[in-house]
């Protein structure tokens, strides 16, 4: 069953963004997320695979049969995930939604440090 367009959760958004740059395995996703969020997002295996399970069930992500060339034997054994076309559209929709929010007058006022009251 595919999910109706709805705001993605922050972790989902970050995971989809990470996968938009290429296929990745579980620990690779954890490492990239931690690095890109400046350490704010530290996923442990349980939560990581809960999010992956949701994204798989929604059709945003799929398991990849291919393995990136040049990876170690250990990495070859891991399961890789890729972004699906549906996932890419959902990601693009979410980014546009966030962009619209960020470019709104209210948001710009808040970002400039205005009181707004």
């Amino acid at each position, binding site marked *: 069953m595919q999910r109706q367009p709805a705001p993605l959760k922050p972790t989902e958004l970050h995971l989809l963004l990470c996968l938009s740059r290429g296929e990745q*395995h*579980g*620990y690779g996703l*954890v490492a990239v997320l931690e690095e890109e969020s400046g350490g704010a997002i*530290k996923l*442990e*295996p*349980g*939560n*990581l*695979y*809960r999010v*992956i*399970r949701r994204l798989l069930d929604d059709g945003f992500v799929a398991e990849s049969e291919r393995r990136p060339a040049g990876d170690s034997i250990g990495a070859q*054994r*891991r*399961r890789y995930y890729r972004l699906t076309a549906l996932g890419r559209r959902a990601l693009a929709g979410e980014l546009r939604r966030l962009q619209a929010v960020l470019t709104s007058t209210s948001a710009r006022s808040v970002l400039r440090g205005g009181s707004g009251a």
Partner: protein
Amino acid sequence: MRVPTVSKSERLFAWLLRAFPSDFRQRFGVDMQEVFLDQLNVARTARGGLWAFWGRVLPSFLWAALSERLRSGRVPELSHTVRRRPSMFSELGSDVRHAFRLLRRSPVFATTSILIIALGVGAVTTTFSAMEALLLRGVPGTRDTDRVMSSQLLASDGTFTMTASPELIDHWRTRARLVEGVAGHTGNELTLTIDGAGVSAAGGIVTAGFFELLNVSPQVGRFFSAADDSAGSAPVAVLSHEFWQA
């Protein structure tokens, strides 16, 4: 404080995976262990070490497991599924099966529990058997001992007991209307002379009719008669089977 080793952490994580629903484990269990091992290797050299790592991972991990179980409806107490009310015996059967499954998962705990319960039951059984034999059951060979009553003479201020004289016992025996009979007894550590040698024996002095009150009969010979109570009569004794055999 000891820091858990990597192998212990791995074993603990593999055990904790059971918190997730089985279908989730089958789907992602191996991958989760791979990610955990990678994180563990990093944590070993990080500040805080394994303790800090487990402190961060464990709550989040358990919360994820609970969320997955709630989603899949595998937590019956919290799910909203409507089920037919089970009968008492079907519920009992499932409880027993559940208990056996839990015990089978922890054989050491199960064995220890069974041994402790066995020791407890044994100790209680022994105690009650001894109490029953010593306090509740009558002397072997006696009958209707629940109708036998023992009384003592007490000083008027209750500070010490007094010995009833043979005349007083005889007086009670001839005047009592509510009891079948009255006999006197006193316990003593006796010294007997057998073949010129002194022998110590636990015994007592009783009046005639004592054994008849207990409804016992001698294996050999006779018990005391009224003539034995009279002054100047020859001394007589009743020996227990055990003393006779010794």
